[in-house]
C-alpha cells in the first residue's frame, strides 16, 4: 500500500513502483518546481540576510535529521545531540588547521570535503560509544546517558582539552580562504547556501533510502516495540547502535558544514540548549517524518527571526529589550514547545498531510 495518494485509475503493479521516489507525473512536476525554487529563485531573489536565515534552516535540518532518526524512527530519545555536532565541527576544524595536507589536496580544494567525511565518521563513532548503554537501558535512563554525553563531551573534553590544542585558548578561528570546495572558496552566504543545499539533499536522500530498506524497517520495528522486534529475529542491539552511528554521522556533517558559515568555533556554539532545541524542532515538525524535520526547522528559525524583527522597532524605545532578546527567545521557545505538545501533538507534518488530503479529495472529502 502506497502511502501516497494516487489519482483514479493509476495502480502500482510491483513493489518497485510502490517505493519509487516520484510516483506520479504531478509529484514529479511539483518536485522539479521545488528544485527550481531552491536552486534558482531563492539565490536570485533573497538578499544576504535571508540567505543567512536559509543557511540556519539548513543547519537545523542537518542537525535535526539525526535526532529525528533516533527519536522518530528508532525510539531512542536523545537529549545530547549537540555533542556529536560539536565533535564533527571540531574534528573538521582541527583537520583543516593542524593537519599537514599535501599541496595538491589544498590546491584542488578537496581538503575540506575530505575533512567533512572524516568528521562525520568521528562523530558517528563517538555517538556509537554513547549509544552503547542503549543495549542495557532504555526510556528515561537512556535519556540521562545521552545528557551525560553532552556534558562530558562539550563541557568537559572540548572545553578543557580540545580547546587547548594549538594554544589558541577558547575559540578556534578559521582564516579566510582555508575553506575551499573544489575551485570555490566558501566565503559568501550564497556559496554557503549552495553547499548547504547539496548537503541537505544528500542527507535526506541517505535517510529516505535507509528508511525504505531492511535497516529502516528494523528501526521502525524497534521503535514500535523492541521486545517484539527481538522476537521477530531483529538484532536489536546491532540496529540500535547503527541508528546511533548514522545519527552521529549526520550530526558530524552538520557540524563540519557549519564551520564554513561561522568561521570561528567555541564550545558556546554547542550548548545543551542546542540539543534540546533540536528535539523541540522535530516535536514541532512532527515525530517520525522527514517532512516534519524540515517544516519544524523552517518554522522555528523563521519564527525566531520574525520575533527579532518585531522586537527591533521596539528596541528604540526600550534599549534593554535588545539585550534581553536572548531570554525572550528562550522563554518563547519553551512556551512554543509546551503549547505544541498540548494542542498539536502530531506536529506540523500532520497538518500538512491533512491539507494535502483535503485538496486531493476535493470536492468530495470521503
Amino acid at each position, binding site marked *: 500500500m502506497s502511502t501516497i495518494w494516487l489519482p483514479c485509475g493509476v495502480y502500482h503493479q510491483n513493489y518497485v513502483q510502490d517505493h519509487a521516489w516520484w510516483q506520479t507525473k504531478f509529484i514529479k512536476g511539483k518536485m522539479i518546481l521545488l528544485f527550481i525554487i531552491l536552486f534558482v529563485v531563492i539565490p536570485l531573489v533573497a538578499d544576504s540576510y535571508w540567505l543567512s536565515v536559509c543557511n540556519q534552516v539548513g543547519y537545523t535540518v542537518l542537525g535535526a535529521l539525526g535526532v529525528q532518526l533516533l*527519536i522518530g524512527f528508532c525510539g531512542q*530519545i536523545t*537529549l545530547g545531540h549537540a555533542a556529536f555536532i560539536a565533535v564533527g565541527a571540531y574534528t573538521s576544524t582541527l583537520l583543516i588547521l593542524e593537519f599537514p595536507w599535501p599541496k595538491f589536496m589544498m590546491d584542488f580544494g578537496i581538503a575540506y570535503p575530505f575533512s567533512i567525511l572524516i568528521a562525520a565518521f568521528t562523530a558517528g563513532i563517538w555517538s556509537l560509544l*554513547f549509544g*552503547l*548503554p542503549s543495549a*542495557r*537501558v532504555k*526510556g*528515561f*535512563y537512556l*535519556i*540521562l*546517558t545521552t*545528557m*551525560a554525553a553532552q*556534558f*562530558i563531551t562539550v*563541557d*568537559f573534553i572540548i*572545553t*578543557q582539552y580540545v580547546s587547548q590544542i594549538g594554544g589558541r585558548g577558547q575559540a578556534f578561528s578559521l582564516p579566510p580562504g582555508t575553506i575551499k570546495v573544489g575551485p570555490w572558496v566558501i566565503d559568501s552566504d550564497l556559496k554557503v547556501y549552495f553547499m548547504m543545499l547539496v548537503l541537505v539533499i544528500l542527507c535526506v536522500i541517505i535517510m529516505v533510502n535507509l528508511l525504505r530498506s531492511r535497516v529502516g524497517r528494523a528501526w521502525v520495528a524497534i521503535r514500535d*516495540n523492541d*521486545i*517484539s522486534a527481538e*522476537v521477530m529475529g531483529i538484532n536489536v542491539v546491532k540496529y540500535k547502535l547503527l541508528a546511533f552511528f548514522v545519527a552521529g554521522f549526520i550530526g558530524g556533517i552538520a557540524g563540519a558544514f557549519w564551520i564554513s558559515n561561522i568561521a570561528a568555533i567555541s564550545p558556546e556554539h554547542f550548548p545543551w*540548549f542546542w540539543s*534540546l532545541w533540536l*528535539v*523541540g524542532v522535530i*516535536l514541532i515538525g512532527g*515525530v517520525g517524518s522527514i517532512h516534519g524535520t524540515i517544516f519544524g526547522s523552517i518554522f522555528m528559525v523563521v519564527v525566531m527571526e520574525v520575533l527579532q524583527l518585531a522586537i527591533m522597532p521596539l528596541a528604540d524605545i526600550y534599549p534593554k529589550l535588545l539585550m*534581553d532578546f*536572548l*531570554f*525572550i*527567545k*528562550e*522563554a*518563547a*521557545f*519553551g*512556551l*512554543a*514547545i*509546551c503549547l505544541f*505538545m*498540548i494542542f498539536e*501533538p502530531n506536529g506540523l507534518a500532520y497538518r500538512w498531510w491533512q491539507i494535502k488530503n483535503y485538496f486531493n479529495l476535493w470536492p468530495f472529502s470521503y
Partner: protein
Amino acid sequence: MELFLMTITTGIMVGSIYALVALGWVLIYKCSGVLNLAMGEMTLIGAYVSLSFYSMGIPFLPALLISLIIGLILGILTERIFLDKLIGEPVLTVIMVTVGLSFFFKGMLELIWGTDTRVFTPPVFSIEPIHIGPVIVGQAYLWSFVAAIILLIIFGCFFKYTRWGLAMQATADDEMAALSIGVSARFVYAAAWGIAFMAAGVGGTLLGNINGLNISVGYLGLLVLPAVVLGGLNSVPGAIVGGIAIGILQNLCGAYLDKYFPGGIKEVAPFVFMVVFLLFKPHGLWGWERIERV
C-alpha cells in the same frame, strides 16, 4: 586524612541539599509518572523569590516561608495549566513539556532578575567556620545540612502520619486502587508538584547561601538526576541516599582528581559515574524492575 574527612563532611552537607531536591523529583515521578527536567529552574525560582524578599529587609525565615507559599501556588498552577492535560500521553511528550517549562522559567527568571550573581546581603549565616574535632566546616554548610535534615524529617512525617500524605503514598503505590477507594488523583498530582516546588525552593535558597545565586545554580538542580538514578527512580529513601552519595562523590573528585583532570571534573563526575553505574545496575539501587511483556 584531614582533607579526606573534610571533603566527606562537606560532601554529606551539600549532598543533603541534593537529597531534598531529589525527594521532590521522586515525589512527582512516583505520584504522577512525570519525568521532570525542570527541576533546576524550580530550585532557581524558590531561591530568587526568597532572595528578593530577604533583600527587601524581611528576616530570613519569613522570607523563606513566603517563598515556600509562592512555590506551592506556582507548583499547583504549573500542574493545572500544563501537566494536567498530558495524563496518558507518551513519555517523550511529557518530558519535552517539562523541558519547555524549564526554558520558559529560565527565560522569565533572566528577564526579571538578570544574569549577574547575587548574594544574600547581609549574609544569613556568619562566615566564621566551626571546628568539629579536626574538621573545619563553614557555617552556611552546617546550617544548610541542619535545615535539609529537618525538612526531610517533616516531609517524612507528612507522608507517614497525615491523611494527605497517606493519599499520596496510596496513589504512588497503585493508582487504580487508590482511585477506587476515593483518593482524588488530581489532588495528589497537584500536591506532588506543590511539594516538589517547595522542596526545590528550599534547596535553591540553601545553595544560594553557600556560593551566591546565579543562573548556573540551576545546573546543580540537574545533579538530582544522577542522584535519583543512583537510588532508583521510584524510591524515596533511594533519592536521599543518592543525593548524599552524589554530594560526596562530587567533593571527592574535586579534591583528589582535580590535579589530574584540571577544570570541570567536579561538574562532570556525577554524570560519568551515572553512565558507568547504569551499565551495571540499569534500575538503580532500589528502583522497581518492570517486567515487560509484548
